[in-house]
């Protein structure tokens, strides 16, 4: 198993390099110079000087290597708009995204797993049908639309919760900060909870049809303890699905963060796109993608650890 884990970690290195190359080339797909879009009409000499100071006058492969080397040491350049260090901007934004990401993942996982397992256990009843219907709706719902509906109902109509921003950034543990988190978290949790519910339901149904469940019942185990066994057997699969969903959730938070003006990475990315702020754009995409790679790695390793049969090779 250790062997597998080491190989899995080593395999992440070429992937991460490939990701960085894709991120770098993506940004340079756009026609024109990154600077000319930002500074507008200035005299050519000044533009050339700025280009040299940002390193945009060097050939692309050299630019890539310099960028990669700097990024590895935590230097991601400076925003073309505000002049702030990209690394600092990213860390602040990432903290905000991870905060709602983890909250949404926990909420989605708990809701999905409990509801899905109950539905699978009571297979064929009205409860199962209701859960399945809600889950299929949850899988297909555009989360940015759900976000708008939440704003309309809870902010505009009822006036219970704020619709924008993160509140007083100073105190994460204040009620004000929590109030700002509730709606984005619900919008983000919808899809993962539906997917987890579907997985848990299918998983529980499959396990219930296995012989060992019958053996447990034949031994006279009370039903709740049978259910515990079932839950334990379903857990690795459900956890793995949740792990991947968590990773998708961070990447997919762009749209939800835009709706709520939540100061996270998605919002930063959105601003960077429309400002054509290349260093911020590159940094945000790279950070999110590397985070995704990392979570995939952790999920794989955890899964092998929970269920050694999975360890491939």
């Amino acid at each position, binding site marked *: 198993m250790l062997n597998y884990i080491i190989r899995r970690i080593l395999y992440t290195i*070429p*992937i*991460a390099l*490939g*990701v960085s*190359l*894709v*991120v770098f080339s*993506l*940004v340079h*797909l*756009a026609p024109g110079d990154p600077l000319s879009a930002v500074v507008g009409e200035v005299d050519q000499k000044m533009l050339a000087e700025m280009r040299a100071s940002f390193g945009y006058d060097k050939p692309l492969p050299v630019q890539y290597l310099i960028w990669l080397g700097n990024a590895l040491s935590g230097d991601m350049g400076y925003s073309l708009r505000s002049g702030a260090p990209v690394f600092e901007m990213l860390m602040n934004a990432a903290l905000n995204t991870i905060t709602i990401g983890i909250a949404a993942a926990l909420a989605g996982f708990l809701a999905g797993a409990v509801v899905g397992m109950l539905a699978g256990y009571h297979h064929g009843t009205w409860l199962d049908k209701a859960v399945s219907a809600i889950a*299929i*709706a949850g*899988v*297909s*719902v*555009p989360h*940015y*639309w759900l976000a*708008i*509906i939440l*704003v*309309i109902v809870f902010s*505009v*109509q009822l006036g219970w919760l704020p619709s924008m921003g993160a509140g007083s950034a100073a105190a994460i543990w204040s009620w004000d900060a929590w109030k700002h988190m509730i709606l984005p978290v619900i919008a983000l949790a919808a899809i993962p909870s539906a997917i987890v519910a579907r997985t848990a339901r299918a998983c529980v149904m499959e396990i219930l049809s296995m012989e060992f469940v019958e053996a447990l019942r034949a031994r006279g185990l009370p039903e709740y303890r049978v259910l515990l066994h079932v839950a334990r057997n379903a857990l690795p699969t459900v956890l793995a699905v949740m792990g991947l969903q968590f*990773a*998708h959730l*961070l*990447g*997919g938070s*762009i*749209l939800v963060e*835009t*709706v709520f003006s939540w100061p996270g990475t998605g919002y930063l*990315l*959105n601003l*960077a*796109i*429309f400002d054509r702020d290349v260093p911020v*754009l590159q940094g945000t*995409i790279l950070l*999110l*993608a590397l985070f*995704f*790679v990392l979570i*995939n790695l952790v999920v794989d390793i955890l899964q092998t650890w929970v269920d050694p049969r999975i360890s491939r090779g």
Partner: protein
Amino acid sequence: MSEKITLPLTIPGGQPAAAEVPVGGIAQRTYWQNVWRRIVRDPYTMACAFVLLLITGAALFAPWLGLPDPTQSNSGQRLLPLVSPGHLLGTDELGRDMLSRLIHGGRLSLMMGVTPVLAALLIGGALGLSAGFLGGRTNMLIMRLTDVFYAFPSILLAVAIAGSLGAGTSNALLAITVVFIPPVTRVMESVTTQVRTMDFVEAARASGAGSFTIIRIHILGNVLGPVLVYATVLVSVSIVISAGLSFIGLGASPPAAEWGLMLNTLRESIFLAPLNAVLPGFMIFITSMCFNLISDGLRSAMDVRL
């Protein structure tokens, strides 16, 4: 109805088949006839197919339905509520007829949902087929490249590509196509690799079948079911993502009628006309859900496991 017993039967490694044992001496049905029968008898799938037909049909024939011009604004009739005289679903923030815009919007939204999937099926299908069929280094190269693109969450990759290329429908289409190529390649590669090493392919080769025949009959025959199921799910995802791109300003541009863009421009009106503001998203939701349910129906009708 005459009595018969249907034994769903998958010959290991062979073409999935369902043997029909006619009790009353009825002609046998082929696998696809059986699939069709199961689909037709599935009320959810049929209901979804009906809704989709309605939305697609209305979108296709929109210019001939006698609807008001979807881009004709009218400053005196802004944000009329639902069921207003002359405007069944009200008007938007520029006084344009919502019903007309929603129906016309289906043209762009559906096109942006379906085209990337078709393109990805062609490109990813060819890549996966080559990887699986040729094996060796080609397989290594293609699949490792796929892994790199797999390392991006789908929405992030779409936003990153569309954002780098700049706003516009064709850039959004390109972005979503790139997002879908890796998963299609993977599905295609795994099925092809499985089928390629089967005994019956060996037998076909021994009896003189060329690579082309083997690909056409055995591999494509086996891959059709899973790919069809997968493609319907992708369309459902694609509709949500493409509308999402338009929603953040990266897809269709004003004054075009497109569901995601409409949702975006109506966002400022949630205080005045919340119901109007919600409608375009409802269209995205219903369309996406119907494709999802149809995929579920196809999956169980064909007994596909992905």
